[in-house]
C-alpha cells in the first residue's frame, strides 16, 4: 500500500512527496514493524535494488509475512531524480538535518516527517552507498553510544564488517542518531559505491534483512543463513591512506582483498608526463574494506581504509 510520508507543494506545478510502500498481512499482522530507508543521499543508489528485492520477495511469498514492512526507497526524491547528493535548491546534506522541525523550513519539515513516520518501528535500516568516490564492502557502522542495543541486531544482518566508531557531535544530526535517540534501533549500512548498483551486495543485504525479519517475527521461519561479520571496535585498527599528491589514481587492489605489508594498493600518475607520481602501499597486513573508485584525486583525497589483522571469517 503506497502511503505519503511528507508532502509539500513546489512553486511550479509539482508536489514534493516522500512515499513509502507498506506491506502487511490481510489481518493487519502482529504489530511488529521493520522499516527499510534509503536515498537520503541522492547519489547513493545501492539501496534501490535492496528495496526492489525485498518488495519482490514479499509479493512472491505473501503467506510468510507476519508483521509490517515499510519500504522508503527515496527519502530525498528530488536528489535521486536530479543526480544530486544533497537536497537540490538548498545544497544541504539531508543527513545533517535530523531530527528536523515540523514548523521549520522545507528541509527541516521533511526531516521531521520522516522521523515521525519511523517512530514505532522495531528496527530501521538506513542504507547508504558511500559516495561516488569510494567503494565499500557491506558493513554496518555503529556509534559507540548505541553499541549495546545495536550490536546483536547488526550481527544478524549478513554484512561483512561491523565498524563501531566514536561519538562525533556532527553525527548527532543524522537520521540514525535521531532514531536511536528516540528508541528506534537503527542500523546504518554502507555498501558499494555511489551512482552504481552492485547486485551481489543487494542479494547479500536482502538476505540479511529477511533473516532479521525472521528474528523479529515479521517473516515466517525460513532458516535463512547469515555470515559472521568481522567486528572492529578499536579505532587504531583502521588505517587510512590519503593521496600524498594530486593526480590520477589507479587502483591495484580490489576492496575485500587481504593485503600483505608493502602490497601496492594503487598509484597516482601524471598523464602529462607519463610519470608515476607515487605508489601507495599497505603499511601492514590487513583487509582492504574501502578503496577509491573515482580516479581524480587532490592531495589528501581518501584512497583506502585497511583493517589491521586479516580476518579469517570475512569474504
Amino acid at each position, binding site marked *: 500500500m503506497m502511503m505519503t510520508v511528507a508532502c*509539500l507543494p513546489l512553486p511550479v506545478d509539482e508536489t514534493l512527496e516522500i512515499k513509502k510502500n507498506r506491506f502487511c498481512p490481510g489481518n493487519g499482522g502482529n504489530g511488529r514493524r521493520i522499516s527499510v530507508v534509503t536515498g537520503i543521499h541522492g547519489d547513493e543508489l545501492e539501496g534501490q535494488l535492496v528495496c526492489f528485492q525485498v518488495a519482490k520477495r514479499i509479493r512472491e511469498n505473501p503467506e510468510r509475512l507476519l508483521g509490517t514492512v515499510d519500504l522508503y526507497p527515496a527519502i530525498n526524491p528530488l536528489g535521486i531524480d536530479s543526480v544530486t547528493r544533497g537536497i537540490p535548491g538548498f545544497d544541504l546534506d539531508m543527513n545533517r538535518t535530523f531530527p528536523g522541525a515540523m514548523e521549520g523550513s522545507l528541509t527541516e519539515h521533511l526531516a521531521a516527517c520522516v522521523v515521525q513516520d519511523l517512530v514505532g518501528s522495531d528496527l530501521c535500516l538506513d542504507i547508504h552507498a558511500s559516495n561516488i568516490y569510494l567503494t565499500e564492502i557491506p558493513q554496518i557502522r555503529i556509534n559507540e553510544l548505541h553499541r549495546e542495543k545495536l550490536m546483536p541486531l547488526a550481527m544478524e544482518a549478513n554484512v561483512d564488517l561491523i565498524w563501531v566508531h566514536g561519538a562525533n557531535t556532527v553525527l548527532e*544530526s543524522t537520521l540514525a542518531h535521531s532514531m536511536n535517540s528516540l528508541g528506534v534501533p537503527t542500523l546504518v549500512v554502507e555498501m558499494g559505491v555511489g551512482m552504481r548498483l552492485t547486485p551481489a551486495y543487494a542479494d547479500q543485504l536482502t538476505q540479511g534483512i529477511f533473516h532479521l525479519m525472521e528474528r523479529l517475527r515479521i517473516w515466517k521461519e525460513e532458516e535463512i543463513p547469515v555470515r559472521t561479520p568481522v567486528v572492529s571496535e578499536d579505532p587504531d585498527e583502521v588505517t587510512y591512506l590519503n593521496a600524498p599528491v594530486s593526480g590520477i589514481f589507479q587502483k591495484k587492489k580490489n576492496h575485500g582483498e587481504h593485503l600483505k605489508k608493502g602490497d601496492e594498493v594503487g598509484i597516482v600518475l601524471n598523464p602529462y608526463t607519463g610519470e608515476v607520481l607515487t605508489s601507495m602501499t599497505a603499511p601492514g597486513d590487513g583487509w582492504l574494506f574501502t578503496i577509491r573508485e573515482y580516479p581524480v584525486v587532490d592531495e589528501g*583525497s581518501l584512497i583506502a581504509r585497511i583493517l589491521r589483522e586479516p580476518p579469517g571469517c570475512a569474504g
Partner: protein
Amino acid sequence: MEKEILFQIPSLYRDDFRIRGYRFGQGKKALCVVGSMRGNEYQQIYTCSQLVARLKELEGRGLLKEDQEILVIPSLNPSSMNIEKRFWPTDNSDINRMFPGYSLGETTQRIAAGVFGQIKDFENGIQFASFYMPGKFSPHVRMMKTGYENVEKAREFGLPYIVLRVPKPYDTTTLNYNWQIWETNAFSLYGAATDTIDEESARRLIDGILRFLASEGILKEGAQADPPRESRVFTDRELLAVRSRKSGILKSLVGVEVKVAQGQLLGYLLDTGEGRRIEELYAPLDGTVFFAHSKPLVYANTAVFKLLAGEEPFRGER
C-alpha cells in the same frame, strides 16, 4: 603590509590552490579576519578586499599600531569561487564544516588544519559569514553561546544587533565555534548579501571593524572611527518567523531594517501559472524586519521574513 601565501596545495590540472593573507603590523596577534569560505560568498570576499584597502591606507598614513598584528584572509577557497561552485570542487565538502581540521586527513580537512594552525592564536577573530537560505540580514554580529562568547567585546563593533545562537551539532566544526574553543574572541559578521555585492552593507561592516580596532587600541590617535554605538543583544530564538504556507513567486513589500506594524502586509505570493495572489504575508507584531528572503521563488514553510519585536534603540547611518 605583507602579502603572503598561508597555505598551498599543488594541483595537476589547475593552478595551485593558494590561500593568501595580508598582514599588517608585527607582534601581538590582535585580529584575524576571514572572508569567503564558499564559492558564492562574493559579498564576503568583496568586503574583505575593501577592508584590506582601508587598512593599507591607514597603514600608509601611520595610523595602525606597528606592534599589533592584523591578518586578513579574503578567501579560504579560491578554487571554488573561480568556477562558481559553492563547495569544494572535487568532493563538494564544506571547508566551514572541517574545523579544526586534520593535517593528515582529506583535502578540506587539510585546508582547515593548515589555516587554523596559523590563525588560532589571535586574540580576536572575525568571519564574514553567510546563511544557507538566500536572504538579506540587518548588519549584525553573531556569536555562538559556548560559554566563551564575549558579548561586551561584540558591542565594540557598534553594529545594530548582536545575535546569540545556541550551537547545533553541525556548528561544532565551524571556524567560529573552534576559534571560541581555542579562546579567541570569535565574531561572525553578517550583512545584507552573499552572492551579490552590496556596497552599503560592506561599508557598514568595515566601519564596524574600524570601531572595533579603535576600541581595542589597534588604531592610533587620529584615525577616524565613529565611536561605538549601542547594540541590541538578543538570541536567535527571539526572532519571529513569518512563514509561507504555499509555494510561488515572492513579491516583497519591505526590506531589512524597516519598521513594520502589526497587521501590515509584508509581501505576497503569486501563482506561477496564473499570476494571482495565493497568499499574503502579514506582520504578526510591531517590530523591525531583521531578515528578508531574497530569491524570486519561495517554497512552502520558508521563513520569508524574520521580525524582531519592539523598538530598536539603534539609529544608525542609513
